[in-house]
């Protein structure tokens, strides 16, 4: 019966270990992993700079539309995709994966033809433990506490207290295998942009393979261009006042211009930084404390006061707001570039929706928009993989096969005739495909993001043109790829306090001036500590 006895010592050890990691962010000497360095700063970057993997775009893939820093776009799926690998990756032994999902779970292996076929192609059995993204933190922390991370595991680059220490204790150090030119052994991983790899560095070592994003995570304002055209309105205002006037013009008793107060767009218009900004002297300023915040909040408050925002906005979710916009109840809605395809499937007859770029508030051209985070998530390899680390990287490389390859087609669409049908030359998932392919493997390994809207080449083209116009001046968040211990522990709580206040101000329950006091509290409660940690991490990375 000894195997089911509660081991008091182990219970205490595990709890203390995790609590210690979370609360202090220091390594536990009792279970240290020799050769991984010593203690670290709260920024998790004391190990000094590391040579990031060399960026080598995969030569076998050419996008229909491409540009420097833009999301490459494909107008149609290449016909007759060829395999780009020779046989199964890895070492032929079974492995497990702890994978994120944003979709309903797929059928179990015994009822899932896609999964069975994937295992055949991998030459090994892959067991998947799916974690809904909304519940990730709880599940990740318990799995780590129980020392049950499988060979491959996904994790967020931020938001997990003590992450650098945790990775040092539980994850394989991939630096020697991926740093610099070593990445060339994995050509599909080498095509992941350098900016995304920055998120994989903790304590000066590489602990994961990124799932790259950036431009497509950028939030923009979509407008119903068909309705605007009917009214003869040109959706290209030259100042915030003109933008406000346009919103007022399209609002009536049962129609509102906006599905929500587009605070991101307003802040872009008024020149508030994207999260943080660094001045010439190297001082970091948070968007919260930026001088233009009060003007931006006042502009947002006025939209609500003038009745230009749907009255149910505070109790609605993004999906609901998009539904309003497709229905014409509202004309403008905020969403990311990658949120565009969903509009196409929301109505029997697709409606015309296009990006409306914000003007500088005082006039003088287009405001710089905020670039999204360069990394969606990372995939680490558990220390338990032992000498199978290279085999696991080979699997991740296979999963990152480029757009238009046979591997990519299978990974995303399954088997023709079973999971998808070819309609007008484009692969279209059927019911079985939609159900069986959602194994979370797109968050385990993925090549550079490609914008592809099957059946809507004109939309893909127009989105690309918008990016060509807006991305060159877009501003990135300098903290996006840096880790701050304070942010991981208190960031959500602190920003929720500020967001709640923002809602109160917008709804007229509190004056705009309340923001200033709240910023002082925010700084005291952790804002200043975050600034310090980001400054330190940034200096170490740059230096």
């Amino acid at each position, binding site marked *: 019966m000894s195997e089911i006895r509660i081991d008091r010592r182990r219970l205490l050890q595990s709890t203390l270990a995790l609590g210690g990691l979370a609360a202090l962010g220091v390594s536990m000497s009792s279970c240290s992993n020799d050769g991984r360095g010593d203690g670290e700063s709260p920024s998790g970057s004391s190990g000094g700079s590391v040579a990031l993997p060399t960026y080598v775009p995969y030569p076998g893939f050419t996008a229909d539309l491409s540009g420097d820093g833009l999301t490459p776009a494909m107008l149609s799926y290449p016909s007759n995709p060829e395999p780009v690998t020779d046989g199964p990756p890895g070492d032929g032994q079974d492995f497990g994966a702890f994978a994120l999902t944003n979709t309903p779970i797929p059928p*179990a292996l015994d009822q899932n033809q896609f999964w069975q076929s994937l295992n055949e192609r991998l030459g090994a059995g892959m067991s998947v433990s799916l974690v809904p993204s909304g519940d990730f933190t709880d599940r990740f922390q318990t799995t780590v506490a129980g020392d049950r991370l499988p060979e491959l595991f996904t994790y967020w680059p931020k938001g997990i207290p003590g992450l650098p220490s945790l990775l040092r204790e539980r994850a394989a150090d991939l630096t020697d295998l991926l740093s610099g030119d070593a990445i060339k052994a994995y050509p599909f991983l080498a095509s992941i942009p350098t900016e995304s790899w920055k998120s994989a560095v903790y304590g000066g070592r590489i602990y994961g393979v990124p799932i790259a994003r950036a431009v497509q995570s950028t939030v923009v304002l979509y407008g119903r261009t068909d309705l605007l055209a009917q009214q003869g309105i040109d959706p290209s205002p030259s100042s915030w006042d003109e933008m406000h006037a346009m919103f007022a013009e399209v609002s009536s008793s049962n129609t509102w211009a906006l599905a929500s107060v587009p605070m991101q767009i307003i802040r872009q218009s008024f020149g508030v930084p994207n999260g943080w900004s660094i001045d010439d002297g190297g001082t970091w300023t948070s968007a919260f404390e930026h001088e233009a915040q009060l003007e931006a909040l006042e502009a947002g408050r006025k939209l609500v006061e003038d009745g230009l925002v749907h009255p149910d906005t505070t109790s609605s979710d993004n999906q609901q707001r998009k539904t309003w916009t497709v229905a014409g109840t509202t004309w403008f809605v905020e969403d990311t570039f990658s949120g565009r395809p969903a509009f196409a499937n929301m109505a029997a007859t697709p409606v015309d929706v296009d990006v409306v770029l914000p003007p500088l508030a005082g006039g003088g051209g287009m405001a710089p928009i905020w670039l999204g985070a360069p990394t969606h998530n990372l995939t680490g390899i558990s220390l338990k993989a032992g000498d199978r680390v290279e085999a696991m990287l080979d699997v991740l490389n296979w999963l990152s096969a480029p757009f238009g390859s046979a591997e990519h087609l299978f990974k995303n669409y399954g088997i023709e005739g079973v999971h998808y049908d070819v309609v007008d030359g484009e692969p279209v998932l059927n019911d079985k495909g939609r159900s069986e392919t959602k194994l979370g493997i797109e968050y385990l390994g993925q090549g550079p993001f490609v914008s592809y809207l099957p*059946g809507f080449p004109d939309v893909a083209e127009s989105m690309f043109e918008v990016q060509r116009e807006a991305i060159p001046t877009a501003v990135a968040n300098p903290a996006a790829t840096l880790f701050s211990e304070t942010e991981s522990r208190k960031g959500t709580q602190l920003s929720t306090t500020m967001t709640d206040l923002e809602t109160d101000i917008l709804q007229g329950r509190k004056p705009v001036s309340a923001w200033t006091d709240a910023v002082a509290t925010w700084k005291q409660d952790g804002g200043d500590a975050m600034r310090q940690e980001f400054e330190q991490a940034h200096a170490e990375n740059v230096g």
Partner: protein
Amino acid sequence: MSSAETASSARRTGRSGALIDGVPRPGRVENVIKAVVLTAICAVVILPFIGIISTSLAPADQVTRAGGFVLLPEGIDLTAYRSILTGGVVTRALLISSVVTAVGTALSLTLTAMLGWALSRRGSIGNRPLLLLVLVSLLFNPGIIPSYLVVQQLGLLDTLWAIIIPTSVSAFNVIVVRAFFVGLPQEVMDSARIDGAGEWKLFVHMGLPLARPVLAVVGLFYGVGYWNAFFNALLYISDSALWPLQLVLRTYVVDGTQLGAQDLGPEVSLPPQTTIQMAILVISIIPILIVYPFLQRHFAKGMLTGAVKG
């Protein structure tokens, strides 16, 4: 019939036109106001239900046009139900939830009744410290990670027992059942004891039959609890093939990004997310709605148990 009885009867029935049980008969205006108020209250309760069912059945186009909720569907469209039930994931989860609810409720009722009985018997060994221990569990929560480690070391991870055993005894329900047993007349127990009944016999043949109403209510609490629970399954079961219904359905509601709409082609028009959410609500409440009427007759009586005696 005496004249007093006749008068009393007349008062109750209100045939005299003035009083009903000593209370003046309401006038017409008062009745109308009451009817309006009660109708409004009923509407507030019933309309959301109708809205949920209607939206889950309404054609996608109507839901989009309405901007979300629909009160009267223009037609019956089962696409949302079909997309949820495709692949057998939900039906499998339905079976798992049914097993967990049935086994869990039976186990919980057994343990709760036995513990409630033991704690109600004055003079039983360790009665007071044990009661204190039960009460302490109402005040202190063990936390996610310690609970996980205990479940792991008991070897329950990735088994359905992991979602049954940790929540099998609720201190609140134990207190309710104990209060009921404490309220049973001591004379009845004494007479049974004189007839030769031991403690076990007292419990099985006297305590349990008398406690049927309270056990029905507590059973309903446990049953609904097991049916609705998802968090423990999320933490303790990594194989999604063993996930209960609520956790599976939650992935549609919380994480549902239009079922991966970015991968779809122009030929595919998915049901709106609101329709899917409403269909999920319907699927998840139907089993409880079926069970509820069978337990309802015990409900009022059971709820009063312990209300005036703690």
